[in-house]
C-alpha cells in the first residue's frame, strides 16, 4: 500500500516536471472550452450538458496521450529494470501508475469548475447534473486511464502506445452509436460494453450502481491485463 502511494506520487510529480502536463491541460481546456462556449449562448440553457457530452470523445484522445509514457518511456530508457529490481510488486507498480494518471486527469478537470461557477452568475443552475457530471467524468477518466496504462505496457514505443490507447478508448466511446449495424440479439450486450451511455446516465445526475459497476469492471479488467502483460514480459 505504501509502495503504491510512493510510486503514484512520483509519477504524478513527473507529469509536472516535464512540459507534457501543461501542454495537455492547455489543449484540453482550449478544445472543451471552445466547443462548449461556441454554442452555449445560442441555446441559452444554464447547464453543462454540452460540456459533458463532449467529454468521452475528448478523453479518448487526451488520456492516451497522458498515459502513453507510463511504461513505454521506462522501457525505452531502461529504468524499467531499475524499477522492477526494487522491492515492489507488479501490482504496486500498475496501481501506482494508474492512480497517478487518474489524479492527473482529475486535476485537469479542476479548472473547468469555473464554468458552472460562471454560469451560476448568469442563470439558475441545477447542481445535481453538475455534481453527477464531474463524478461521471472522474469514473470515465479512470477507466480510460486503465486502458491507456494497458496500451503503454504493451510496447516500448510511446507513439504505438498512444495509437493503441486511442483506438481502444475511441471504440468504447462510439460503440453505442454503432448499434444500428449489430445483430438484434447482441445489441443489449454491446450497449452495455459501450462507455458513453453509462457516462451519460451518471452525468444526468442519476447515480446507478450498474453504471458505477461498469466503470469499476473496466478499470479492473485493464489493470489486471496490465499485470498479466508485465508478468508475461519478464
Amino acid at each position, binding site marked *: 500500500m505504501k509502495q503504491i502511494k510512493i510510486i503514484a506520487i512520483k509519477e504524478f510529480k513527473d507529469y509536472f516536471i516535464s512540459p507534457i502536463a501543461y501542454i495537455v491541460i492547455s489543449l484540453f481546456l482550449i478544445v472543451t472550452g471552445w466547443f462548449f462556449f461556441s454554442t452555449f449562448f445560442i441555446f441559452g440553457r444554464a447547464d453543462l450538458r454540452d460540456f459533458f457530452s463532449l467529454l468521452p470523445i475528448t478523453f479518448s484522445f487526451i488520456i492516451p496521450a497522458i498515459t502513453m509514457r507510463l511504461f513505454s518511456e521506462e522501457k525505452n530508457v531502461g529504468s524499467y529494470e531499475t524499477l522492477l*529490481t*526494487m522491492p515492489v510488486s507488479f501490482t504496486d507498480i500498475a496501481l501506482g501508475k494508474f492512480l497517478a494518471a487518474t489524479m492527473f486527469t482529475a486535476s485537469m478537470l479542476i479548472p473547468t469548475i469555473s464554468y458552472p461557477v460562471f454560469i451560476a452568475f448568469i442563470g439558475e443552475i441545477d447542481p445535481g447534473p453538475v455534481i453527477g457530471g464531474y463524478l461521471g467524468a472522474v469514473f470515465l477518466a479512470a477507466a480510460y486511464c486503465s486502458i491507456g496504462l494497458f496500451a503503454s505496457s504493451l510496447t516500448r514505443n510511446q507513439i504505438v502506445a498512444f495509437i493503441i490507447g486511442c483506438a481502444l478508448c475511441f471504440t468504447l466511446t462510439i460503440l453505442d452509436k454503432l448499434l444500428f449495424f449489430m445483430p438484434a440479439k447482441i445489441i443489449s450486450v454491446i450497449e452495455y460494453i459501450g462507455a458513453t451511455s453509462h457516462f451519460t446516465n451518471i452525468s444526468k445526475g442519476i447515480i446507478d450502481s450498474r453504471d458505477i459497476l461498469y466503470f469499476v469492471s473496466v478499470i479492473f479488467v485493464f489493470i489486471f491485463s496490465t499485470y498479466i502483460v508485465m508478468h508475461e514480459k519478464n
Partner: protein
Amino acid sequence: MIEVQNLTKNFKGFRAVNNISMTVRKGEILGLLGPNGAGKTTTLRMLTGYFRPSSGTIKIKDFQMPKDAIKIKSLIGYLPESAPLYHNMLVYDYLDYIARIKGIDDKETRYDRFLQLSDLCGLSSIMDKPIATLSKGLKQRVGLAHAMMTDPQILILDEPTSGLDPNQIAEIRDIIKTIGKEKTIIFSTHILSEAEATCDRIAIINKGRVVADDTTASLKQSVKQNSFINLSLKGASKDSAKTLLESIDSNLNVKDIEPVEEDLVSFEITSSDNRDFRSDIYLKIKETDWIIIQLTKESQALEKIFQELTREGA
C-alpha cells in the same frame, strides 16, 4: 549466501543462459567474466528478479526466487548495466524516491544516509543537478549510490566500470574493494585485469555456460606454464641472436617480435617444459658483446585462460 542451480534462460529461438550452477559465499567478491553476449547480464538479471528463469532454482539466503521475490529484492543492491535512471529527476529527488521505496521512512535517517553515500560515491556537488545532464561516470556513481542505499548484504553490479575514464575506474574499484570487506559482491566485467585485481573468485562464462569457476589465485596457478620471457638486446642482429638462443636448449621456442625501441631486437621465448631459463639466457648473452636491455618473465595467466576457454567452439 547465493545458490544457483541449473539456471537456464531461453529467449525466442536461442538459449542465453544454459544450465549454470554456482555458489557464492558470504563476504566473497565474485567476478563474472565473459565475452560480449556470453550471458553475464542475463544471469545477473535473473538473480535480481528482472528476468524469470526458464528453469532452475535461485536461492538467496533462505529465500527462493520467484516465491520470495520481494524479500530477495530488498536484500540485493543492483546496479544495472549503464545505470538506467529517471532522466527528468534531480539527483536528490531520485535518491529520495529510491530511499522511500526501499522503506527508509524516517526523514532524518534518509538524510544521514544521503550524506554517507554522497561522501562514498562523491555526489555532493551534483545533488541539485538533473540526471539527464550528468556524464556517464557521474550517472554510474548515482547508480552505485542507488544500489547501496539500504546498505544491502548483497551487491550485484553489471559492468560497473564500463565507459568510465581511468580515474573513475580506479575510484569505482576502490569503492568495490572497500565495501567488499563486509558484503557479498557479484560483478560482471570483460576487463580481465579488473577481475584479477578485485575478485576473490572468478567465474568465466561463455555461450551461456560456466567454463571456469575458481579462486583467482588457483586459476592463475593452473596456467603457470603459460609464462614467457621477454628479451630485448642491443647491438645484436636478429638471426645470429635467434640461433644463439635456440642453441641453449632444445625445449626453447624463440619468436621474434616487434622491438620495443628502435635499434633493438626483441624476442618472446617460451619453453615447452616448466623450467625458468632466465639465468641460462643471461649467461649465454654474457659471452657476447650484446647488451641486455630487457629480460623479464611475464605471465598472462588470465588472458590465456580466457582466450582458451572462450575461443573453444566459437
